[in-house]
């Protein structure tokens, strides 16, 4: 029977906290970039310009058909070299965080674009017709009339996807980046207390994600009654 020893956790808290900040930074940046890029992809997908729509469809299908961890590895291995040669950065500049964020953003955009596409399609066609009839251009009608309603309908789904993304950030351990999970792993490995640290990390992920999903549920119910 394994004897639990939690004593290494209190001392490691500052280090774990730094890891949590990295996890949150990746999550937030990827959510923001993912939604922006995902919106553009959704608009391309719905556009009547065939090459744009094909590009978006291809992009979405590609990213949805490969494992996230593989995308992260590609970015970990390729992006730093690319940026080094493009911007003449000194070799060995630490770009793990940048590549992780880029990888997540591009990957998540594929998922976000599908959510956003469904959101745009959930807005009645008559809204676009009414906006056009008032003389708005396609862009104005989208920006002022359709997208605001689409996003309002989508908020719960976008947040839920954000929660999933937060969990998935633990995958950056493949690039040895000390996010929350990576930090917990390192501490556990160093002190020979891997089981305790991983249980602790799991508990923290659970509490945060469960609480966040409750908030989303609450918001959803409020929207229903509004």
């Amino acid at each position: 029977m394994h004897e639990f020893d939690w004593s290494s956790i209190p001392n490691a808290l500052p280090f774990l906290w730094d890891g949590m900040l990295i996890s949150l930074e990746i999550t937030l940046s990827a959510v923001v970039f993912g939604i922006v890029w995902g919106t553009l992809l959704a608009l391309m997908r719905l556009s009547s310009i065939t090459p744009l729509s094909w590009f978006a469809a291809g992009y979405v299908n590609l990213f949805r058909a490969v494992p996230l961890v593989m995308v992260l590895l590609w970015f970990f291995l390729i992006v730093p070299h690319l940026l080094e040669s493009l911007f003449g950065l000194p070799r060995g500049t630490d770009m793990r965080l940048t590549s992780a964020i880029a990888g997540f953003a591009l990957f998540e955009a594929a998922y976000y674009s599908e959510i956003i596409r469904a959101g745009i399609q959930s807005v009645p066609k008559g809204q676009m017709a009414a906006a056009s009839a008032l003389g708005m251009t396609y862009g104005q009608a989208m920006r002022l009339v359709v997208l605001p309603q689409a996003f309002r309908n989508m908020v719960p789904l976008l947040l839920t996807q954000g929660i999933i993304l937060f969990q998935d950030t633990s995958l950056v351990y493949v690039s040895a980046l000390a996010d929350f999970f990576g930090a917990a792993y390192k501490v556990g490995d160093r002190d020979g207390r891997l089981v305790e640290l991983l249980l602790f990390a799991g508990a923290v992920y659970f509490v945060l994600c469960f609480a966040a999903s409750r908030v989303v549920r609450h918001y959803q119910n409020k929207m229903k009654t509004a």
Partner: protein
Amino acid sequence: MISMNKVSKHYGSFQVLADCTTQVQKGEVIVVCGPSGSGKSTLIKCVNGLEPFQSGEIIVNGVSVGDPKTNLSKLRSTVGMVFQNFELFPHMRIIDNLAIAQVKVLGRNPEQAREKGFKLLDRVGLRVQAEKYPGQLSGGQQQRVAIARALSMDPICMLFDEPTSALDPEMINEVLDVMTELAQEGMTMMCVTHEMGFARRVAHRVIFMDQGRIVEDDSKEAFFGNPRSERAQQFLAKILHH
């Protein structure tokens, strides 16, 4: 003001509009009626280019709607349209529904646009509702707001696509009253509607459509007095005798 010449439209082999030809003069009020699926909504949506058509020509105030070089947005900003399902923007307050296109399309300053919005709300009797959201208003009120929104653009003519079909019976008259007033002020109007009482009161001409064709296009006296086609006689008999 509006002239249509042999306008045709089809989805695949299904003919929606066939050789529709008619004219609307400035200040005229035209009622378009006919059985459902006869193409009347499609016809008026072609006038502002919301529905494309394959052949024929529509000229609105000297501008060809079907011409690819035409700036459709600009043309539409001069033609008011009212829809069956109101289509107010649910995420904006009533006053913002009235102001937004004035600001974003016509480039009016926001203060002036709101001022004009309030005036028009006054006119349709809904000034007190200005700060509410569309969902808080009844159907009849929403449709009056929709008419005010179209008028906020100072249109040269107005298109109505079954403006009372989605309303509860007790709300139909408040909308028809606004439309009647508008007609009496000399607005050029094309109305798709089944409200024959409205047609009798204010229309100058009635167009009767069936299977994508304009079957009758006559003064209202002639149409109600003695419709020539059998199809129009049947239609009138059905909707007037109950």
